[in-house]
């Protein structure tokens, strides 16, 4: 069975501008729309396309989080994933613990490829895929904007600061997605109904042998200092005048 494991995280929707709690102990997430992390949706889309091309047989989505994550996993199943794994955890895991947990799932599922988003847009860590690859002792191809499987290798184009880098990795491997890899499909109503019958298996950290060990302490959350409100100019010549006066041009 050629299997692809896709790690998906539930995050506050990218359209929402979050606010810091008045007592600086966190950000306010209650009552906000939660969605699949956009990069993870792209990871799932890529896995589905690989299955549709016939280079993979099964797409399994996995998430670590509170029971409510079921709702995002149902969305993933409606998009086309074959089954879902939910590792319930009431405490958020640091990337290192998330990677250790995903490694347990990797050992269980023996995937050919593990796809993750390059970063979760809540904590903006950009770490989990690289950590999983290290612990698994397998290749990593991060920030992918193109992915091709051929035999037991994958060719990946990566978005790097200098441009586009292409690397080749032996499978199994970890690939993390960048925005331009694909555009995820929309979910259609009949699929949502069908998805209700798909298997969503719940596991817990203890069964997997994971004891989360938070190593970093969040001491304080602050609202960034706002920029001073600027001025509107009426035309190009006024703009040129103010920029010149400020020594900016």
């Amino acid at each position, binding site marked *: 069975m050629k299997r692809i494991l896709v790690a998906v995280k539930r995050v506050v929707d*990218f359209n929402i501008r*979050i606010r*810091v709690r008045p007592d600086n102990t966190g*950000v306010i997430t209650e009552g906000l729309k939660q969605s699949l992390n956009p990069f993870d949706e792209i990871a799932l889309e890529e896995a589905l396309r690989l299955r549709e091309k016939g280079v993979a047989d099964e797409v399994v989505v996995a998430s670590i989080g509170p029971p409510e994550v079921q709702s995002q996993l149902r969305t993933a199943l409606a998009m086309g994933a074959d089954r879902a794994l939910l590792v319930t955890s009431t405490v958020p895991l640091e*990337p*290192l613990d998330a*990677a250790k947990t995903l490694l347990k799932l990797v050992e269980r599922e023996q995937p050919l490829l593990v796809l993750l988003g390059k*970063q979760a*847009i*809540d*904590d*903006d860590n*950009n*770490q989990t895929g*690289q*950590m999983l*690859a*290290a612990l698994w002792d*397998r*290749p*990593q*191809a991060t*920030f992918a904007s193109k992915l091709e499987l051929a035999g037991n290798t994958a060719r990946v184009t*990566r*978005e*790097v*600061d*200098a*441009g*586009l*880098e*292409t*690397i*080749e990795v*032996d499978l199994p*491997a970890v690939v993390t997605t960048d*925005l*331009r890899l694909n555009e995820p499909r929309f979910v259609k109503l009949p699929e949502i109904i069908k998805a209700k019958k798909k298997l969503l298996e719940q596991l817990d950290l203890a069964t997997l042998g994971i004891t989360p060990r938070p*190593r*970093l*302490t*969040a*001491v304080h*959350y*602050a*609202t*960034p200092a706002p*920029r001073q409100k*600027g001025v*509107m*100019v009426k*035309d*190009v010549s006024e*703009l*040129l005048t103010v*920029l*010149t006066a*400020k020594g*900016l*041009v």
Partner: protein
Amino acid sequence: MNRILLIAEHGARLSSATARTLRCAQDIGGEIDIVVCGVGVATVAAATSRLAGITRVLTIDSNFHAHPLAAVLAPQLAALASGYTHVLAPSTTFGKDLLPRLAALLDVPAISDVMAVESPTRFRRPIYAGNAILTVEAGELRPVAATVRLASFTAVTEQAAAAPVESAQVPEPAVTHTRFIALAAQGGDRPELQSARRVVSGGRALGSAEKFALVQQLADALGAAVGASRAAVDAGYAPNDLQVGQTGKIIAPELYIALGISGAIQHLTGIKDARAIVAINKDADAPIFEVADYGLVADLFEAVPALVAGLKNKSAG
């Protein structure tokens, strides 16, 4: 006493990413070693050794590192890093790829995008696309592994006196499962986006790759680097390495000019540290005007040529 290992980023020459990361290392304080990995790195190592305030430069010179690959470098650097209290890398695609892999091998967490040092174990970093700033305490675990947000630190300058350069004692590279194939570099001789003093960016409003030349014209008139919004990159008007924002480059130029960019939070997070922001947009309600120091409601296809002409007159007169 802190012992800090800084992983250098370099091409044929020393990169400002290394010099900025060094500033963060100096804020932490302690003995600072910089490790330079590559093949034939003598010249880069020599330039690195003149960065002010460092103890020594270590080199890992190997044919394996002609093109740095995280999977190949991480085991070697892990062997080296265990003797240090801190390991730092720039928060570039190079550092972001490498440092978490290295941290996992050392069984320590990684701290991404350090923007300020409060103490040797306490750092500030942006989360939620920069909409909140988290202060995080690393406690007793060593080494503290972190990537450094370059826009938050100024580059340390070179000096005449050089620190010693030594070859690092590390195991031979052994990983063959990951292979470099090609790099398509898209830059030209334009100023580099991340260190440029002025940046002109274009958004979806430009409408085509041909019309995006207007952004380049203004940039040329100002000696500026060119940037782009994600929408402009997605549409193929500009190459991916010009994307500014949460998932592109974070920049802090003295002057940032946004042309036909709406000002989505993911874009704004990349330009918050700019000293002055100028926005030209035909929609008076565009969110970019909330952060712009100077806003002009206008059609960019009229305003930009006029601005270019005005700048040319100015330099001629």
